[in-house]
């Protein structure tokens, strides 16, 4: 390795790691070094292999070849237990928490002590102590489903700290946090390294790298393009280029456009979530044709429920008017007939039928009208033709239109959904987290598609956790907090700080 780091300061060294998944090389001869007491950012776009690499370090995957050294000695992990024993703790992007158990029960899972009898009160105290010492507030007896997302993340960190982890891996931890909470997390991270711990911080957000990391390693398509360079020696633009492989212009083709008449209007809409608690409280908003209204907010503040009441998947009080017709509490078909397109948050769970072919998925909204269908008959030849056209137009990469969609990559899956929804020239588009988890190329393509629809005079409601995306695409932005709209303004007047405060409920505009 070309590092001039004294041996005794290296906490982790991963040499020449190779890992294959069927059809793809996830890690291609990757080298990675973690210094003791540093915050090391692992940067790359979605699918670059960063989570995979750290899953290997955490003992979840076994590499096909390569070597791992912890504090200078070679190790071989056969399961997460081995990694934990060596002081490695991982906080996953998708929390690994059992929602029906308490905080303490989750922390104690998999440990050897207590051996048989679970004397919880004693351990509740221990858990609370450790949380305090790192500046985190948590109720050990609470069940996970009762906690907020930010609190759940604290439990995840607690799990690692309780096990005496010296090496912490945080996988995209800021995705679910508001700007202020992100600052809190960074404070906790600095506290931890000051106690001698070493942190790997996986992210695809350049701002955060520049803010909190000491060194950064960049992965692209499974290979290392920058090996542990100091953050001081590099710029955001250079990092972006290393991530993507070409010069990235942080610009989209957004043309000025005058909005027309109101297409979507919500009047005093209230709704309950799946647990019977209020998710939307007296929400009123308007979206005009040719404009994008962005909804900013931390996940779990009512965004999903908002999309669902508009598309007929959830009951509500109040009125939901599309082109003047009230579609509230009716079947999704009513909204669809009014020209609504829905790009759902959950691509595999709701948006597609995984074992069916691309064709079958593409006709989900048009299967009961000509030319695909006459009376009760479906012409699969017409469907195939329709599908082939869309496949070409939207550049969906797949062997054929008969391929099952669960074999497609995330980006191509989203393209199938978009092709299906947008090809019907919708008047209203409800897009929920449309670019989550996609690589830069796919993100750009999809954002441009949305802008194109905006020029075609569609009204677009864009719900996204990426503030940058909202600022770039939206004409107006509204902030949702605990089911209420607490602020609404034109994007030009938007101030990041104000939005951040609103997202956490600390501020409310007098509208």
């Amino acid at each position, binding site marked *: 390795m070309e590092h001039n780091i004294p041996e005794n300061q290296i906490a982790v060294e991963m040499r020449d790691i190779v890992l294959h998944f069927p059809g793809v090389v996830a890690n291609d001869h990757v080298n990675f070094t973690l210094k003791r007491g540093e915050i090391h950012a692992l940067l790359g776009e979605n699918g670059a292999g960063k989570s995979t690499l750290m899953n290997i370090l955490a003992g979840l995957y*076994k590499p096909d070849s390569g070597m791992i050294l912890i504090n200078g000695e070679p190790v071989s992990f056969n399961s997460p237990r081995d990694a934990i024993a060596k002081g490695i703790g991982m906080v996953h992007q998708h929390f690994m928490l059992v929602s029906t158990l308490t905080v303490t029960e989750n922390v104690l899972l998999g440990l050897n002590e207590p051996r048989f009898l679970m004397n919880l009160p004693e351990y509740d105290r221990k858990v609370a102590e450790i949380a305090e010492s790192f500046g985190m507030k948590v109720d050990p007896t609470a069940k996970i489903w009762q906690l907020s997302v930010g609190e759940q993340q604290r439990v995840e960190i607690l799990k690692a700290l309780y096990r005496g982890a010296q090496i912490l891996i945080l996988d995209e931890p800021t995705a679910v946090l508001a700007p202020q909470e992100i600052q809190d997390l960074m404070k906790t991270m600095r506290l931890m390294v000051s106690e001698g711990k070493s942190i790997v911080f996986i992210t695809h957000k350049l701002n955060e790298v520049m803010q909190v990391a000491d060194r950064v390693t960049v992965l692209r398509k499974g290979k290392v393009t920058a090996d542990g360079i100091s953050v001081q020696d590099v710029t955001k633009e250079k990092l972006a280029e290393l991530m993507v492989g070409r010069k990235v212009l942080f610009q989209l083709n957004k043309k000025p456009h005058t909005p027309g008449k109101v297409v979507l209007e919500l009047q005093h809409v209230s709704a309950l979530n799946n647990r019977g608690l209020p998710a939307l409280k007296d929400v009123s908003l308007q979206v005009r044709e040719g404009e994008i209204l962005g909804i900013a907010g931390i996940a779990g503040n009512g965004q999903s429920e908002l999309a669902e009441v508009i598309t*007929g998947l959830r009951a509500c009080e109040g009125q939901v008017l599309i082109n003047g017709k009230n579609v509230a509490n009716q079947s*999704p078909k009513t909204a669809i007939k009014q020209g609504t397109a829905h790009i759902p948050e959950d691509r595999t769970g*709701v948006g*597609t*039928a995984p*074992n069916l072919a691309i064709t079958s998925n593409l006709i989900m909204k048009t299967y009961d009208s000509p030319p695909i269908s006459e009376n009760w*008959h*479906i012409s699969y030849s017409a469907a195939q033709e329709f599908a082939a056209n869309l496949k070409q137009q939207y550049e969906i990469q797949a062997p054929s239109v008969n391929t099952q969609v669960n074999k497609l990559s995330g980006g191509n899956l989203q393209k199938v959904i978009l092709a299906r929804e947008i090809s019907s020239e919708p008047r209203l588009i409800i897009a929920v987290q449309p670019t989550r988890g996609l690589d830069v190329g796919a993100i750009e393509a999809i954002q441009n598609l949305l802008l194109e629809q905006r020029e075609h005079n569609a009204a677009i409601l864009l719900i996204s956790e990426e503030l940058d995306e909202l600022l770039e695409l939206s004409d107006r932005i509204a902030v949702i907090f605990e089911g209420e709209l607490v602020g609404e303004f034109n994007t030009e007047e938007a101030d990041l700080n104000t939005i951040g405060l609103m997202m956490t409920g600390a501020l409310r505009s007098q509208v």
Partner: protein
Amino acid sequence: MSLPIHLQVEKRLDEPPRWLPVATSVGAIVLAFLISGVILLLIGGDPVKTFQYFYNAAFGSWGALSDVIVKATPLLLIGLGCGIAFRMKLWNIGAEGQFYIGAFCASLVPLVPLMNMETTPRAVVLLVMVLFGMIGGALYGFIPGFLKAKFNVSEIISTLMLNYVAVYWNNYWIYSTFSDAGFQMTPMFPKSAWLPRLADLTQQNRAFSGITLHLGVVFGLVAAVILTHVINHSRWGYEITLIGDNPKAAEYAGIDIKRNIILVFMLSGALAGLAGMSEVSGVVHRLQERISTNYGFSGVIVAWLAKLNPLATILVSFLFGALIVAGREIQPSGLYFLIQGTILFLVISSDVLLRYRIRFVRTSSEAA
């Protein structure tokens, strides 16, 4: 020291070859016979002679062949009904009960009697019986469908429970109101309530003498063709397939899932009910306690073995019909259940081959 080459199991990236599902089904049957043969050996039987006897009993003569088709008919209808329900991931294990209720309702026509059996033309009587049988089965299928749609009650258990209820229901009427002089069966139906069979044509052709093949099989074949068309070429077929694969996506596309649960269960029940009518009208010509040799459960296996494909169901039901005919006199009687259970178990075990494949891979020189 590890081997230079080792087996690796990995998920398939693309479609499995077309012949594989057929091969796994066929392989399962062959293997099931082998295993049953072994067990036969263990309890002192002679497998080779037994299986030879099997073959002769099923295919040795025209009479035997006709018997096979007669036995296959209810299996075909029930297999079709189960197949369409399974396509929507509705586990209708209640075909047995729907069969009995269909038989009961159809029998009401000659037993009450609901029309004048002497003067009404035979075609009309049979048509009404068909309708009653299908409606009876459909209504009995409505119950578990409704319970599932409204209360999310597990249809596996509700249909199973209803099987027992249907048998007791029939028994009551057979033993009391419609009993034939106190015997545990109803009197024989008048000729106008009999489904025509080839034996009726003995006068035209001596060869038909004693051939019990009856019109019921035509019902089955017609149903298979109609169902194939519905599944592959109709809107409803598309909706059913979509719901079965991902109900959330279907909901999001605006399809009414609850309505379809009830409709599909009623269709499934109607087909089983038709099988019941076909059996009492075409074979036993009366309502009695035992009119089904577990057709309801065999139908489940037939549907699964045919991979829910209606046309394949024709083939598989024929095969199982042969199994029943040949196994009629084979001791021990539990062998039938055993072979069926083994076949089903092997089929689902072999389904793994459709999702994963085995490859020979060079072991890398540097193990981690």
